[in-house]
C-alpha cells in the first residue's frame, strides 16, 4: 500500500498529464459532431503521434539536463530525406526507411559528439547544428514535393481491423522498443544521474560520456521516426523552418507538461507523449468549439502558459526560502 502511494506520488507529473488528456479528449469527443468514431480518433491520432515522437526525442537530452533545439529540424530533415528515399518497390522503400533512420541517428550523433567531446553547451550546440541540418534539408528539397511509397503510407496512417489507429500502435511499439529498454539499461540510469549531478555521477563510475552520446543519438533516431511518419501523412517533403520551429518549441512544452524536469534528473518519455497529446487536443478543441480563427493563437498560447504555470505551486509549498533557489 505504501509502495503504491509512493509510486503514485513519484509519478504525479505524468499521471496528471494523463488525467488532463483523458478529460480534454472526453470533452472533445462529447462535442464532436461525429462522436466517438474510428475516423475521428484516427485523424486525431495521426497528428498527435508526430508531436509525441518529437517530444519523446526531446525528453532524452532533457533527462541529462541538456536540451535539443534541433529535434524539429531533424524531424523536417528526415521528412525531406524520406520523400526522396522511401519510394519505389516495397523492398526499396523499406531500405529507404532504414537509411532515413540511420541519417537521423547520425544527426543525433553529431550533436552528441559536439556536446561530449567538444564540451559545448547543448543549447547552443543544437541551435547551431540545427542551422546546418536545416541547410542540408533545403539542399535535399529546395522546393516542397516528392512522394512516398503509398502502401507503407496508407498502412501507417490507417487503422487495424477498422478500429485501432496504426499510428498509435507504432507509437506504443517505439515506446516498448526504444524508451523502455533505454530506461532500464545502465545508460538510462546514467542519464538521470547526470541530470541530478554530473560530477557525482562521474566520480561514482557512471558512464557519463557514453550515456550522453547515446541520449542524442536516440533523440535523432526518434525524430527520424517522426519524420518518416510525417512523410506518410503529407505524401511529400518540405524543408519548412516554420514546421521545424513549431515542433521544437511544442516538444519542449510537451516535455514540461508531461512532468519532466527541465533541470534534468527526473522524467519519463511516456509523460511527454501525454503532454504532446494534450497540446494537440487543445487545437482540436478549438475546432469543435468553433472559436474564431483569430482567437486561436492567443488561446493556444494562454493554455500553454497556464499549463506550465502549474509548476509554480512548488513555490508556495516551500518552508525554507533557500529551497526555492534550487
Amino acid at each position, binding site marked *: 500500500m505504501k509502495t503504491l502511494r509512493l509510486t503514485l506520488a513519484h509519478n504525479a507529473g505524468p499521471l496528471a498529464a494523463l488525467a488532463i488528456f483523458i478529460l480534454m479528449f472526453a470533452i472533445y469527443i462529447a462535442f464532436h459532431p461525429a462522436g466517438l468514431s474510428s475516423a475521428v480518433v484516427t485523424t486525431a491520432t495521426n497528428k498527435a503521434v508526430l508531436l509525441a515522437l518529437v517530444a519523446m526525442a526531446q525528453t532524452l537530452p532533457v533527462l541529462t539536463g541538456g536540451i535539443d533545439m534541433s529535434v524539429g529540424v531533424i524531424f523536417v530533415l528526415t521528412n525531406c530525406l524520406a520523400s526522396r528515399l522511401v519510394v519505389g518497390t516495397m523492398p526499396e522503400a523499406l531500405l529507404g526507411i532504414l537509411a532515413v533512420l540511420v541519417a537521423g541517428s547520425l544527426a543525433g550523433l553529431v550533436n552528441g559528439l559536439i556536446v561530449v567531446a*567538444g564540451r*559545448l553547451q547543448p543549447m547552443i550546440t543544437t541551435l547551431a547544428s540545427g542551422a546546418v541540418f536545416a541547410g542540408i534539408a533545403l539542399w535535399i528539397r529546395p522546393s516542397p514535393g516528392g512522394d512516398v511509397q503509398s502502401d507503407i503510407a496508407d498502412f501507417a496512417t490507417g487503422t487495424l481491423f477498422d478500429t485501432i489507429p496504426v499510428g498509435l500502435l507504432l507509437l506504443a511499439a517505439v515506446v516498448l522498443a526504444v524508451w523502455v529498454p533505454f530506461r532500464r539499461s545502465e545508460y538510462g540510469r546514467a542519464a538521470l544521474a547526470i541530470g541530478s549531478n554530473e560530477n557525482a555521477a562521474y566520480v561514482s563510475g557512471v558512464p557519463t560520456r557514453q550515456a550522453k552520446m547515446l541520449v542524442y543519438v536516440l533523440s535523432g533516431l526518434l525524430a527520424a521516426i517522426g519524420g518518416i511518419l510525417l512523410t506518410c501523412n503529407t505524401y511529400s517533403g518540405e524543408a519548412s523552418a516554420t514546421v521545424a520551429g513549431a515542433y521544437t518549441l511544442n516538444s*519542449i512544452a510537451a516535455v514540461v507538461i508531461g512532468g519532466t524536469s527541465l533541470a534534468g534528473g527526473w522524467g519519463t518519455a511516456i509523460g511527454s507523449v501525454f503532454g504532446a497529446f494534450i497540446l494537440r487536443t487543445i487545437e482540436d478543441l478549438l475546432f469543435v468549439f468553433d472559436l474564431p480563427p483569430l482567437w486561436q*493563437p492567443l488561446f493556444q498560447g494562454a493554455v500553454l502558459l497556464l499549463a506550465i*504555470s502549474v509548476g*509554480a505551486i512548488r513555490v508556495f509549498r516551500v518552508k525554507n526560502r533557500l529551497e526555492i533557489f534550487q
Partner: protein
Amino acid sequence: MMATPSASSWTLAMNRFGIDRPVQIAIGCIIALLAAGAVYSPAFLSQDYLLQQLQIATFLGVIASGAMMVVLLGHIDLSIPWVVTLGAMMATGLSGWIGPLGVVLAIPFGILCGALVGVFNGIGVAYLRLPAMIFTLGTNAVVQGLLVLLTGGSAPQDKATDAMRLIAVGRSFAGIPNAVLVWLVVGGGMIFLLRRTRFGRAVYAIGNMEAAAYLSGIRTGRIIVACFAFSGAMAALSGILLAGYSTKAYQAMGDSFLMPAMAAVVLGGTSILGGRGNYLGTVCGVILITLLQSILSIMQMPDAGRQVIYGAVIIAMLLVYGRERSTRV
C-alpha cells in the same frame, strides 16, 4: 625591480579594458573575414560598406544587449521574436488609436510595451520560479496570439513615423548612421551598468549563485525582473528601428533574430550558464555574425549552403574557445 612589460601584465592590461581571450579571438576572426572579403572584392574595405554593415548590425546589437543581460543571470529570453514585432506594431499603431499625439509618443510607447512583457517574464522566472526557457516561450506564444488578434481583423496603422525613420536610417552627424549612435548609447549604458554599478555586480552574483547572492542581501527577484524588463525593452527598441528601416511593421518580423542574438552573445564569450561575460565580447559577436551573413549573401551562396556554413562556423569558433572544463571534481 624593473617594470618590463611581461606577458602577464599585458594580459592584465587587456583584461582591464575587457579585451579578454574570446574578444581577442573574435576580433581576429572579424579581421580575417574582412581580409577574405577584400580578396573577393576591394569594396569590402570601403567606408560606405563598413558603415552600412554597422547600421545593419545595430538591429542585432540592440537585441543582443538585452539578451546578454538575461543570459548573464543564467536565464534565457525566448520571447524576443514576438516582442520585436510587438515593439514595432505598438509604435506604428499608436497614432492610429489616439491620433496625432500618438506620433510623438510612438517610440516610448513601443519600448514600454516591450518592457511590460519583460516584467511579466521576470515575475514568472523570479517569483513563480518557473524555468525561463519554457516561461518565456509561453509568453512569446501569448504575445503572438495578442498581435494576431489585434492586427488580423482590422489592420492598424503600420507605417513608421518620421521619428522612427530618422533614428533608423538618418545620418545626422558626420555621416554616421543614427542607428549606430542608438547602439552606442545602449552599449555605453550596458558597460557602465555592468562594470560600475551595484546593479551590475548583482547581475553577475546572481548568475554565479543565486542563493549566495540572496544571502548576501541582494534583492534577487527585483534584479531578475529588471533584467528581463531591459531585455524586453531592447527587443522592442530594435523592432522600432527595424520598422523605421523597412518603413513599416509586419507580422513575424522578429523571427529571424533569436538564433543570431544567442549566437552573438555566446560567441562574445558570455557563458550560457550565467555569471561570466563582458559586453565588448557581445559587440564583437554581433559584428562577426553580421559580417558573416553579409559575405555569404554577397558571394551569392544558395540559402542551403549559407545555413550550413553559418552553423558550422559558429560551432567551429566555439570549439576553439567556448569549451567547458572537463568533468573533474
